């Protein structure tokens, strides 16, 4: 019992634990859709893409987070358009759009020497530095995502499985995707603030992939992925405390170990 309680005496750890739990669940939930649409790289990609948006919005005098969020949303929509309209696969499109977007940020920064802040430090946070304000933000985004995913369960399922037939059957697929891109951008922005960039890709992909190994049912996969995301986040935080390693890396390790464990059992 003391094992669990000891780190809780530190407020930074408690906040970090709650933040990791929420983000783990959030990314686990959205990860199901990402993995099934075969866009697994998008988490990592978008977290770099928003860097371009942050730089541009700083130059225009717009709030950095608002600008980065809108830019991330735009990138997600562009990715979808290019994937469906042309003979390109999602992985190539994500690579092109997100790295180009990041490069825009880097190019502008090197050209316009007006930046007095390390932008990466602004955008990419640390789970150990989560403030109450951050917790509120992440809770709101998680709640919103849960609501949207529940309300649009059928539409999202059908669009993810077979977008053309869904359209014929009357699902407003374009609107559904726009909404999805919106919550994805928000989720990634909020998660980046809390976790930093190394974690994003892992928290989106690994719990969903693990859940897929455990079930054939879509709804069960959603629940499992969310739970696994939360559990590995909690486990990772405790692991990082007791083994004295960086929290981000330990959460990823936990998730990866679980995946390997499930894979070997399922065989």
């Amino acid at each position: 019992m003391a094992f669990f309680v000891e780190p809780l005496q530190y407020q930074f750890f408690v906040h970090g634990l709650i933040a990791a739990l929420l983000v783990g669940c959030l990314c686990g939930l959205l990860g199901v859709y990402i993995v099934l649409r075969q866009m697994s790289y998008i988490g990592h990609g978008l977290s770099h893409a928003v860097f371009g948006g942050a730089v541009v919005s700083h130059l225009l005098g717009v709030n950095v987070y608002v600008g980065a969020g809108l830019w991330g949303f735009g990138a997600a929509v562009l990715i979808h358009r290019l994937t469906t309209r042309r003979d390109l696969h999602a992985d190539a499109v994500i690579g092109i759009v997100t790295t180009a977007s990041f490069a825009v940020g880097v190019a502008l920064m090197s050209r316009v020497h007006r930046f007095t802040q390390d932008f990466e430090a602004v955008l990419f946070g640390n789970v150990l530095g989560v403030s109450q304000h951050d917790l509120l933000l992440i809770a709101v985004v998680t709640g919103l995502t849960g609501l949207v995913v529940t309300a649009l369960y059928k539409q999202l399922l059908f669009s993810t499985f077979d977008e053309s037939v869904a359209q014929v059957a009357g699902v407003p697929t374009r609107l559904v995707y726009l909404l999805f891109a919106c919550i994805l951008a928000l989720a990634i922005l909020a998660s980046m603030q809390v976790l930093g960039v190394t974690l994003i890709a892992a928290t989106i992909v690994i719990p969903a992939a693990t859940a897929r190994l455990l079930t054939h049912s879509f709804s069960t996969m959603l629940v499992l992925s969310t739970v696994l995301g939360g559990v590995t986040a909690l486990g990772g935080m405790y692991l990082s405390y007791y083994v004295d390693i960086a929290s981000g890396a330990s959460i990823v390790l936990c998730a990866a170990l679980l995946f390997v464990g499930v894979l070997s059992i399922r065989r």
Partner: protein
Amino acid sequence: MRKKLVARWCVFLLTMLVLTLAGLPQVALASLHVATTVAPLTDMVQQVGGELLHVHGLIPEGVNSHTFQPAPGDVQYLAQADLVVLNGLHLEIPIEKLIQSSGKPGVTVVKLGEHTVSQTEWVFDTSFPKAQGLPNPHLWLNVDYAMHYVTLIRDHVSALDRDNAAVYHQNAARYLTQLAHLDGCITAAMHTLEPHQRKLLTYHDSWPYFARRYGLTIIGAVQPANFSEPSPREVARLIDQLRREKVPAVFGSEVFPSKVLHKIASEAGVRYVTTLRDDVLPGAQGEADHSYMGMMRHNVTTMLVALGGAPATFTACLQEPATR
């Protein structure tokens, strides 16, 4: 006819010669081109050279000097530079590489830090671990070392521009007096702090040489090596230490907004101050404070206020005239 032509040519050539000779003093005053890196170094060179030097600082203020990548446009400054003034100690590796590939042939490159301290005086710590072999490069925050930087700068520009050596020596002498005075005031001011107040916890690890000179202890720097994340135990340790040792304040950085340090401060119940600078000069270009000395005055005042010392004593000391 031919004689008249020859005579006219002679007059023409003589006139040209006279005019050229008349113009020569201006050519003799033509500036030496000096390229520097961080703003404090740029200011020091300007204090020594004044109007006589064309100085260009390659690293804009506020940009992370450790990871600054020069743009191709910076090449033109390096190609013109007769003298390149670097801090050295691996602070400006990308610029050093650029000099090798694009510098003027025969350009003089001086690495101030490497001529100021010997290897035995190098500081290694958590941000600059001994295992990696790269020492902490932030020598200029120690005013005594800064004075040595100024003498090195003076000697190099004088060697390259002998005609103005006297002026450089004069400027340097005046500046060194001011710096010596500042050094004395800082030492006195730090003595107004109680022993338990003389502790520095910063985000970016710029202060070990300053601490060594002025009797402060560095408790730690939150930004670990390679700019990675601190582990929860390290954070817990810092919080416990701050509480135990009753440290009054911790110092963040405007260039690296650190949520972790902010969190440590709020949980330990200490003040969180973000206005210490190691390579950003306060105020705008042209203002009196926009200089290395202005930056050090600002930093020391900030520290004194945050740690519970007497900033008034420091201000009063600065207003006294500097004597040799």
